């Protein structure tokens, strides 16, 4: 090609290139975000919807009360697949109503029907939607697959009526298109209900996901009514506690976890700091003016340099070589030992032993996190759950949301399976995994959970997290050992009592015959021998 041709090709490409908006981006990448399989799609949609609702209640410090309806309609569609052959999936009607703060009427279309890129570059805060694609992505998925609009009702406290909006998303403009809108009577004082249609597949796994969600959120009440395969069922997960969890707090980023590029951009856009030193101490955790000057000295940068002239790489290297203080740790919304136990009790009502361990918060790379673990042992409910698992039953929860996939890659699972459970009195299989009816819960809350990769559901191996998990599980193990030993002792005591009772029965019969007594009492003697057990 000559120069002219080359120029023409470049200009054509430039014409073809359009700025991609978030809606267009999601449209093309939905399959990467958990919507590729019908079963995953339904679960992913529910996750996003519930996250949204829980966030809405949290804003008002409200105990969440969620009503979820899942109905398999008679319609079916064929989904395209990457392998070429399409797969059939039923269309489900999904409706979730919450008692959150609600959306002011005029904002309803935008908050549901406009996709936003997350702008969480400069703030750190524990949040559910870590892989956050938000409710709008679900609306988009619904629209793309079923060509049907979404209906939203929302009401704010003090309003007499709720606003009902039927909308779709204009993908090219990333704008909601309101198709119908009216104010309606709604029984709830406040809250939001979203109803949409989705291709998907219902499985037990969805119910279990909801149950696991109740472990991460013991203060939540969730009523599910479903009609699948023509069969209607109700399931209510009552709240295990009336206590609201502590609220997550926003924190400044820490120099030990920030990327050079992000640091550079932050400095570039900063317009109220005069010097680099004040920029560092204003925007970063644990950096005093003195520390900032020390870092800059070490980075061979004058402290009164303008922020825009930052050499991000050098600053970070200097910061890394310096022992920076840990960030403020009490910024997390954790589950709590008592709450975890109560939640497990709700799910495994006949469990013989339920215990939880909450570690104090700690940090990795300047990011606060907190590990909590729990276990439910023995009983029919636990046994049933364990029977369905191929491996050690570990319910993994990250920022209060259960992780449904990628079990074996996840640090939350691996830490459990790496404990020498034998040392804690558990029966173990040849592979060393617990051979007991035991369901473990491993939870991490963090201002930012380190996932193995974006869109994945596995926590990465980070030394500090691994250590905290191990410490928590060891403490849990010690408490389990006490229980197991006591149980074995009681079992053997009970066996001994039965053994003694058998002999005393025969002895009493013989003595009665010898002494010509009608009967000979021996219960008192057994009581003396076995005290507590017999009493």
């Amino acid at each position: 090609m000559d120069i002219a041709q080359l120029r023409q090709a470049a200009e054509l490409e430039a014409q073809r290139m359009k700025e991609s908006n978030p809606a267009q981006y999601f449209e093309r990448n939905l399959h990467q975000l958990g919507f590729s399989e019908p079963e995953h799609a339904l679960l992913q949609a529910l996750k996003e919807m519930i996250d949204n609702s829980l966030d809405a209640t949290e804003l008002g410090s409200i105990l969440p009360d969620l009503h979820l309806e899942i109905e398999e309609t008679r319609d079916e569609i064929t989904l395209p697949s990457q392998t070429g052959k399409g797969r059939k999936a039923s269309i489900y009607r999904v409706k979730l109503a919450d008692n959150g703060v609600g959306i002011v009427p005029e904002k309803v279309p935008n908050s549901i029907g406009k996709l936003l890129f997350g702008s969480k570059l400069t703030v750190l805060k524990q949040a559910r939607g870590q892989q956050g694609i938000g409710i709008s992505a679900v609306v988009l998925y619904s629209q793309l697959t079923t060509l049907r609009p979404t209906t939203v009702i929302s009401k704010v406290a003090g309003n007499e009526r709720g606003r009902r909006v039927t909308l779709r998303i204009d993908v090219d403009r990333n704008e909601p298109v309101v198709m119908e809108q009216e104010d309606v009577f709604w029984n709830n004082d406040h809250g939001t209900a979203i109803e949409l249609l989705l291709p998907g597949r219902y499985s037990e796994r969805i119910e279990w996901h909801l149950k696991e969600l109740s472990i991460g959120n013991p203060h939540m009440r969730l009523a599910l009514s479903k009609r699948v395969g023509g069969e209607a069922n109700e399931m209510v997960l009552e709240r295990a506690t009336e206590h609201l969890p502590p609220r997550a707090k926003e924190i400044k980023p820490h120099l030990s976890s920030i990327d050079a590029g992000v640091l550079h951009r932050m400095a570039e856009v900063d317009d109220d700091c005069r010097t680099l030193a004040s920029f560092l101490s204003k925007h970063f955790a644990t950096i005093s003016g003195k520390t900032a000057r020390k870092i800059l000295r070490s980075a061979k940068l004058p402290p009164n340099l303008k922020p825009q002239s930052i050499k991000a790489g050098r600053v970070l290297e200097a910061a890394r070589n310096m022992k920076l203080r840990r960030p403020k740790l009490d910024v997390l919304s954790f589950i709590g030992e008592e709450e975890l136990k109560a939640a497990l009790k709700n799910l495994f009502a006949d469990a013989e032993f339920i215990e939880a361990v909450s570690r104090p918060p700690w940090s990795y790379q300047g990011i606060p996190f907190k590990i909590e673990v729990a276990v439910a042992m023995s009983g029919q409910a636990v046994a049933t759950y364990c029977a369905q698992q191929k491996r050690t039953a570990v319910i993994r929860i990250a920022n209060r949301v259960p992780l449904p996939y990628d079990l074996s890659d996840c640090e939350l699972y691996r830490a459990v399976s790496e404990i020498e459970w034998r040392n804690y009195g558990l029966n173990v299989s040849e592979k060393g995994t617990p051979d007991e009816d035991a369901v473990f819960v491993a939870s991490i809350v963090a201002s930012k959970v380190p996932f193995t990769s974006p869109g994945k559901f596995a926590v990465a191996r980070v030394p500090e997290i691994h250590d905290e998990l191990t410490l928590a599980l060891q403490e849990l193990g010690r408490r389990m050992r006490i229980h197991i030993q006591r149980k074995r002792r009681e079992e053997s005591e009970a066996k001994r009592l039965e053994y003694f009772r058998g002999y005393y029965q025969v002895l009493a019969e013989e003595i009665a015959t010898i002494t010509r007594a009608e009967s000979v009492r021996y219960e008192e003697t057994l009581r003396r021998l076995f005290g507590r057990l017999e009493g």
Partner: protein
Amino acid sequence: MPQETLTVQEVLKRLRQLGSRINDALSKGEIPSVAHRRLSKSNVKFDLDLHTYELGDSQAEISGDRKSSLKKLTALAFLTRVSLERLEIGLSTTKRDYYYLQKSRHPLLMPSNQAESDDVIRVAEVVHEFSRETIGVVAQSKGYLYGDITLREPKMTINCTQTGGDGYSVPGNVEYIDIQELDIKALIAIEKEGIYRNLMELGTPEKLRIGIAMLGGQPSRGMRRMLRKFSDRGCPIGILTDLNPYSLRIAANIIYGSIQSAHISSLSAPNAKFIGLETQDVEKLFPKVRRIVLEPLTEEDLKAANDNVSLPYMQGDAGYWLSENEWFIDNQKKTELEAFNALTKHARDLEEVYVRYIREKTEQKLGVSL
């Protein structure tokens, strides 16, 4: 040490007492337990003065608070009840019978073998302080008695010359048999049947006014108890056995009792005496036929002789038993009562041979002239 003879009524009372004691403990919510002298070899002493085996003072306890002794306590109560019932209707029991009784009572009482149920019987003996025959648990009957001896059995009185056959067949349980009349100067207890029958046939008991008893090897418990009753009546008893290391044990068993039955003093006859065959008889009695009558010791005989050396009674009687036993080890020979026949040319000679021997030995060993 004469053993008091218990009546059936007294035995029944003693059995019921155990029941009452356990009942008392149970009704007070206490833990029933039964103490008794420890039945173990280490608690068996040989009293050199009394010439008898005895149980020492070491105590054992069968207590209802231990898994290990709970079964024994229950089995003891069971045996006590069974004994009561069977005694009341005059039914005897063998050890084997009792084994089956215990097997069928309750799975918890199931004995792992007969040794276990036998042990319960031994425990009952030491707890109640009487022999198992007292409660009707009898051994096999073995042995005969002949001579002018009148016995009173519960249902009849019988003279041992009037029984026909081989004489009075000594039953397994002689506990409730008394010697009513005794018209004999001594009783000769003979190991073997041949010489016993010959003496009957020759009318020797009548001529010498003696009684004879046929042991048939190691005497049965019934025979030992019977001999004790003769001993208690002051009747001199001579024991006549083969000449071999086992025969020494037969004699000692009668005189001193045994380790196994150390807890039952009524099974030894302390005034019984060993009258041969002795080692000196080999030279005195059989000088001409010495080579003919001596048989070689078998390996088991020799082992028995070596084992005898350490037995407690061997150490008493001024070394008599030890030197008798020594002879077997030194000479590796033995002989039998049947050797008397080697001293006769004609059948009519035998009576004289027997009579001479018995006279000499009763004179020498029992101080009784016949």
